[in-house]
């Protein structure tokens, strides 16, 4: 009984101390979210003030969900996210393992690996734009050397090769982030585990499978959540490399949102799209927590 009172008093203190932080979260996260949701039911196009603003209910959601452009953008966004984050994870893991084992020039290699990540997205995309320029770019030059037809050398004029360029730009730029996160994860794995495994006669592959990979899960999860959330919002590469083209073949949800809000100034419609993007990001986050989170807890317990 006394214990319960004590606990509740402690809990009350706890909430009181937490209150300022909760208030800040409510102000900077919940309020904009709620406002966006409310706005998504409104007609608000600031460049057409003659159009009376007002409640339009689910009209914006209906317009989005029945339009081909939204669905293509959704498929594009999911496809881009899965492929580019998958490649970054794979390449990042390989790079992290290599750097972790490196004994010479460690500082230099780490700095060199990080370089692409330090370049702003738009600049990185502009560099790739030069690389794929049909007149003087290095990549079309190589393709010409290989005997690829002239029209296939124009990578940004075909939906599939345009996507390949966008994904390559993203992988080139963001693999270092993955590497860095995984390298940090590798460095906290105690070496005595490997010594014990070696004593027990485990092969290096077994040690990698049974020690390195499971203990990397927390770092991987954090890196994946960061990268997925970012990839789901991909905009800079698209804006710089293709402008959504050819046609609308490389439009993503964030690009459509930019079009809706900054080009068309349709704030209500853009808000509805933002709500759908938020739900998509949330789905990805929950998926990670469901699959890897349980593993994370088990890992922590054992």
């Amino acid at each position: 009984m006394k214990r319960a009172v004590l606990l509740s008093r402690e809990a009350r203190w706890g909430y009181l101390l937490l209150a300022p932080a909760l208030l800040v979260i409510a102000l900077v996260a919940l309020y904009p979210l709620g406002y966006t949701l409310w706005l998504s039911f409104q007609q608000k196009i600031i460049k057409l003030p003659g159009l009376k603003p007002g409640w339009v209910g689910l009209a914006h959601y209906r317009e989005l969900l029945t339009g081909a452009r939204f669905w293509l953008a959704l498929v594009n966004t999911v496809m881009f996210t899965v492929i580019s984050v998958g490649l970054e994870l794979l390449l990042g893991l390989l790079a992290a393992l290599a750097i972790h084992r490196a004994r010479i020039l460690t500082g230099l290699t780490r700095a060199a690996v990080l370089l692409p990540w330090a370049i702003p997205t738009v600049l990185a995309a502009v560099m790739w734009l030069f690389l794929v320029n049909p007149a003087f770019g290095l990549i079309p030059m190589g393709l010409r050397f290989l005997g690829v037809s002239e029209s296939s050398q124009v990578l940004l004029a075909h939906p599939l090769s345009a996507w390949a360029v966008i994904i390559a730009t993203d992988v080139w730029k963001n693999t270092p982030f993955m590497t860095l996160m995984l390298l940090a994860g590798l460095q906290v794995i105690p070496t005595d585990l490997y010594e014990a495994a070696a004593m027990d006669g485990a092969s290096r592959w077994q040690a990698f499978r049974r020690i390195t990979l499971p203990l990397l899960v927390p770092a991987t999860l954090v890196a994946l959540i960061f990268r997925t959330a970012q990839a789901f919002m991909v905009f800079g590469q698209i804006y710089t490399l293709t402008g959504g083209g050819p046609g609308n073949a490389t439009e993503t949800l964030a690009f459509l949102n930019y079009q809706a809000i900054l080009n068309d100034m349709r704030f209500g419609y853009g808000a509805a799209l933002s709500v759908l993007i938020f739900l998509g990001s949330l789905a990805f986050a929950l998926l990670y927590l469901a699959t890897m989170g349980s593993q994370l807890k088990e890992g922590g317990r054992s």
Partner: protein
Amino acid sequence: MRLALTWWGCLWLALAVAGCGATPPPPGVSLVLAGGSGPEEAFAQEQLREFHRLHPDIRVTYQATPSSASERHTLYVTWLSSQAPDIDVLNLDVIWVPEFAAAGWLVPLDRQAAAAGISLDDFLPAGLACSLYQGKLYALPWFVDAGLLYYRRDIYAAAGAPLPHTFADLLRVRSLKEKFGLPYGFLFQGQTYEGLVCVALEFIWSNGGRVFDDSGRLVLDQPRNLEALKTMVNLIYRDRVSPLAVATFQEEDCRHAFEQGYAVLMRNWPYAYPLLSQPASRVQGKFGVLPLVHGPDGQPTSCFGGGCLGINTFSRHPAAAWTLVRFLMSRKNLKRRAKALGMLPPLASLYDDPDLQAQFPYLQRLKNVFSQARPRPITPLYSFISDILQVHFSRALTRQETPQEALQKSQTEIAGVLQRFGRAGAP
């Protein structure tokens, strides 16, 4: 403690000095003029110095805005939709005037123009058309732009070939390109952006096609338009006159390639002319300009572009703002601006000016092109329409859909926009 005291001392001292140094605001009114940055800003500052000498009671500050048209548009809409009085005079792209006029953001200028004795008849007709909305004048054309066909004079002379005038002539340029070993025949702007709409509309208009007919009915899906769009697609795939690369090109990509001597022909705006004539250009003295090519059912019709000056409705000093507009619009200043920046004047009579003709030997040809040029659909909904056209024209150029599908889908989607927002101002 001593450090803190020193800090306070410095602060008070600074405040005191600032207080002594502050001069009372100058008498009269202050205005803000918003326009482009870079050379445009430098030249405007020069003009403003003269304006200050002539009108000591008006102080004008220049507000440089982004050169990218879409970013400048976003900035203007942000200011004006919040009814900001800060900017008095705006340099507007011609396609924004109906949108801003319908929104009530621009001061109607009919009365002032009449009182000042400004003759509207001297303005190039397309420029005037862009400045009018529902019969009222909301801006004054400041400089004009229209699509031109740049050609390699040396190649045509060496081949003894007739100059291209029709779609059919254009489709035959491949032999010329191969004979002289050039990588490209004809270059145009084909990326998914406003430039593509201009080029496609030029092909459509030059074949007698239309987007809206005279009664404002949407007539995009029609045989003449289809023929025009098919010609653009054939240029790339069937007749191999244009490289597929044009589907990724904007103005500067075309200009660079033409400047390197890679192409026989190029569609571009007049801005490229002085740049191609510089010593660093490989085609210096080897090129010329022509009106655009036309189809069997039409006459060469360029897309009209350029800028206007308008006055913000929320300006606190509309009378002073008008004084500034009149100053900038004077013949002398329009001429000086053309000479300094290569931005061509909106007044037809200035094209006969010997001084300007000396600097721009192709001026007479430009006058003809400008007087035949046509504005893009004049409606506050233009940007929505353009967005749809950009996507479908680009899809047709990259063979993601046929020209027929592109026109049908654009027609349906634009009809949807007109139905949804038509109340805000149909064409």
